[in-house]
């Protein structure tokens, strides 16, 4: 049906429970099956507490599912050790969070360099060139050398996007990236994500509460109480 090469992400019956074995044990995700193809631009919506962040953390290999299997670009991940997980995460996944995205001790440019630095162990010229390229792509060349906590919220999110893209990941996960921005900044961020998506094969999963933005995605997945309630292509957009 689908060329397996084109599958960026596959979830098979993923479950996640907290407080396992305790009286307070609760299952948050009840068997998620999902396939994201290369280059897809997906909106993940759903009421607060439905498990969107939990799902995103599992996909980003920051957390382990209680059961089920998760494939990133065809590779099974649930049996991997921390070292391999870290390598796979560094290579394949870019994160953009809602708050506190950047390290305040570093400049905007340095924040963009960090993932490459972590992967290579020490600085080199290529890292600087690549970071400058991405800072330009997100339109922040003029503030690249500013300390990141001196930037506006919108600017910080754009730096975070540049950082998420620096390793050329197969998948970018953005957890309410425009959640605490005004409409105009939110639009700028969204336009940026969309543009990157159209000029690369990177897939995106974007958690958003903004129906206006969700409608501009290729596909909308709605999560309710830890289950996929609906999953449909957004005809208007594609």
């Amino acid at each position, binding site marked *: 049906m689908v060329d397996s090469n084109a599958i960026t992400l596959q979830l098979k019956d993923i479950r996640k429970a907290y407080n396992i074995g305790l009286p307070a044990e609760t299952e948050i995700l009840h068997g998620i099956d999902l396939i994201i193809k290369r280059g897809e631009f997906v909106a993940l919506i759903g009421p607060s507490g439905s498990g969107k962040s939990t799902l995103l953390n599992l996909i980003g290999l920051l957390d382990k599912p209680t059961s089920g299997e998760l494939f990133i670009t065809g590779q099974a991940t649930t049996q991997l050790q921390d070292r391999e997980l870290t390598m796979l995460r560094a290579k394949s996944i870019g994160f953009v969070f809602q708050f506190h995205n950047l390290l305040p*001790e570093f400049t905007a440019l340095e924040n963009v360099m960090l993932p490459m630095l972590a*992967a290579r162990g020490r600085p080199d010229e290529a890292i600087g060139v690549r970071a400058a390229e991405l800072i330009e792509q997100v339109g922040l060349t003029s503030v690249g050398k500013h300390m990141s906590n001196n930037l506006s919220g919108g600017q910080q999110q754009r730096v975070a996007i540049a950082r998420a893209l620096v390793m050329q990941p197969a998948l970018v996960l953005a957890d309410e990236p425009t959640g605490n921005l005004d409409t105009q900044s939110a639009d700028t961020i969204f336009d940026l994500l969309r543009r990157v998506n159209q000029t690369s094969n990177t897939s995106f999963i974007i958690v958003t509460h903004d129906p206006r933005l969700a409608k501009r995605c290729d596909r909308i997945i709605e999560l309710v109480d830890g289950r996929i309630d609906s999953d449909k292509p957004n005809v208007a957009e594609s």
Partner: protein
Amino acid sequence: MNSIMPFEWILATRFMREARMQTLLIMSGVALGVSVIVFISALIGGLQTNLFRRTLDFQAQIVILPPKEVSRSLRQAGNGKLATLVQPRAQRIQSVDQWQKIMKRVEKMKSVEVVSPVVSGSGFIVRGEANKAISLTGIEPDTYLQLIALRNSIIAGTPNISSTDILVGSDLAKDLGVWTGDKLNLQTASGGTATLIIRGIFDFGNSGANSRSVFIALRTAQSLLNLSGGVTSVQLNLDAPFTAETVAQSIQAQTGLEVESWIAANAQFFSALEAQSMSNNVIRFFVGLTAALGIASVLVVSVVQKSKAIGILRATGTSRRQILRLFLLQGALTGLMGSLLGAGAGWLFLTVWRNVAINDDGTQLFPITFDPMLFVYAAVGATLVGILAALFPALQAARLDPAVAIRG
């Protein structure tokens, strides 16, 4: 970030630079501890070196004596009856058997610097009505003056004596009202008597020695004590004073004579020094422990403060190992920089001390040793302490669940 530092170093130095106040405070703490260690060690080292020197100035490192006359055992071999208690024999001056041969043999040993024969005994000086008991030492000036710092103690005249000369202590000279060039009559219990010219006056800084000791030529002493050709001891110095006990034991084993090292002779003094070194180590230990606890507590707080950052780093490709190293490095750097600061401060303090704590005559009140290795040890030690202190917080940081950290 145009540095060549590895990733963890870049992060560690930046974190420390940005947490300026914390870094400064903890480094000052470490520095203070290190400067205390440096200062105390230099002071104690100086005192000990000085004590050793003073001890060795007036004492040969090894003294070879005739074998101790052993009182017969209570039970005679073979015969089962109790023997009568044998009284120790009356102390008679004994000479070292074949001392010239022994001297030749000892002189050939590698570590031996100088060997000198000595005759010692007691006598008295008669001058008019006065009659003073003295202990006399017969020496060969050529070698004996290399053995003991007698030359430096001479306050009048010369220590180079011939058979008609005598050296007396400053207190004895004062008591008798004599000075260099005056004559003294010396007598011994065995009936020997000689009239000698005072060639020099010495001051050992010790009134016992200054009022009782006299030095005369070896030959003169032999005839006064009726020892014709014999000596009561052979004394020697080594190039390494602290090997004296081992060397003494090997000479004893080879010759069957009684051989005493300055270390055995000053056992009490050595155990006092050991106690001093021990208390120095206790101080070091507790200063180290305090520094470690300080570093650890700063890092524990830092891990909590930085948990979001750790989560972000982990999400963007930083491994557990790298996080571990990041915090170990902060501990190590705190220890290293603190110790360098502290060593510098200690050095400064010692220099000031050297110039302030001096006697009226310009010599040092408390001599100190400037051992550059001490600074190296302090730096290495403090770095290790820093790493150890960082171990717990670093493990905590590495174990942090990134999902929880980011959710905060």
